């Protein structure tokens, strides 16, 4: 086959059409990505509005790598909410479906202040879903599931953690039937926030 024959062949035409389609699609996506980009600040503002239902002032607290990493999850960010004196944790829990994760926002209520070194955990005010990786049944987790985390202040203040165990019943067992692995990742995310508060902010042991 000569070069001239190649340029006239169906193979060349097919290749050219595919390349043009891919290039146009790529250019279109690049333009739209620029137009519809969601910045980190916008994400945070959106999350805060979703959590509190109103605008609040939050100050980010810097943590070291060691302070962020726990057995069943990681702390992505911590904010001190100046409006109510509580701490807002963004944590990712491991152990979800297909080794995936779930990221949540947890508001931890407390008494005392960090400066005075007398912070005491009093409970969880609210848990709000943020995002997930690889979880297919997130739609099964409704308001009532997340509300259970906020109704156990006494036990949480006493140092207990949440669990998602199908064979167990109890106040701190929080599980959605049929989505036990995602439930585990959610509990791990909440427990990570509690562990971080207890070790870093209260100076205890995880």
């Amino acid at each position, binding site marked *: 086959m000569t070069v001239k024959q190649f340029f006239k062949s*169906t193979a060349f035409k*097919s290749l050219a059409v595919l390349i043009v389609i*891919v290039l146009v699609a790529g250019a279109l996506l690049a333009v739209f990505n620029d137009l*519809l980009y969601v910045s980190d600040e916008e994400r945070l503002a959106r999350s805060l509005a979703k959590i509190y239902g109103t605008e609040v002032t939050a100050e980010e607290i810097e943590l070291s790598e060691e302070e962020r990493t726990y057995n069943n999850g990681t702390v992505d960010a911590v904010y001190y909410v100046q409006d109510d004196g509580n701490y807002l944790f963004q944590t990712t829990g491991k152990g979800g479906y297909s080794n995936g994760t779930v990221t949540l926002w947890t508001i931890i209520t407390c008494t005392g202040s960090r400066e005075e070194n007398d912070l005491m955990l009093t409970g969880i005010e609210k848990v709000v879903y943020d995002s997930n990786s690889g979880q297919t049944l997130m*739609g099964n987790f409704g308001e009532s599931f997340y509300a259970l985390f906020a109704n156990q202040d006494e036990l949480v203040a006493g140092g207990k953690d949440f669990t998602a165990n199908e064979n167990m019943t109890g106040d701190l067992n929080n599980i959605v*039937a*049929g989505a036990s692995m995602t439930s585990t990742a959610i509990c791990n995310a909440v427990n990570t926030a509690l562990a971080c508060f207890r070790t870093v902010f209260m100076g205890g042991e995880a």
Partner: protein
Amino acid sequence: MNGKIKHYGKIAYDGLITNNATFKLVLGTCATLGMSTSAVNSFGMGLSVTVVLLLSNVIISLLRKVIPNTVRIPAFVVIIATMVTLLRMVLEKYIPDLYDSMGVFLPLIVVNCVILGRAEAFASKQPVLDSAIDGIFTGLGLTCALTVIGIIREFLGSGSFFGIQVMDFKIGFFTNSAGAFFVYGICIALFVLITDQADKARRAKQARLLRVPAGDQPLPAVESSAEEVK
């Protein structure tokens, strides 16, 4: 003009009822079962698929004479993937709640059989307007089917209707995969039963209309139509 309206009406009816993607062709089952835990999620998924179907059908129909037959499938996949990615960006920016709840099912629209199926069977062979109507009505057929399944599963599984708590009971089975299959199967059976009955009634009515009164001379064309109906 009347013939054109009839033609478009037939495309719309086929997309909604005759070739209903969910209940008749049983396509896109993965998304149907996964997203139908609540009515809102089902409705959102259905509308997302409708938008992608419409856009991809129009583009594929526009390019049907340019895309060589040998590379049509990869070309369709690139076009559909582009449309899905654009939809993801729009949802993330403007409807973040729906974007979050759709999770992995949103990017999976790329491999939804309904979209590739309509591109291959319809849009790659038909004019733009026909393809657009087919995209809209196939998508709406899927949206209605998904929403019906979502309403049933949400009501029985959580006692709520579009997120509003109406009953104080929960049957966990309906929020599980087994419950999804169960509701899906019942819905398919009911849909087929209803459409079959309607079809039978329509044929009987047509046959009655075509029956010639005694003594009159039957027209040949009418006679052949009556034969077809029988």
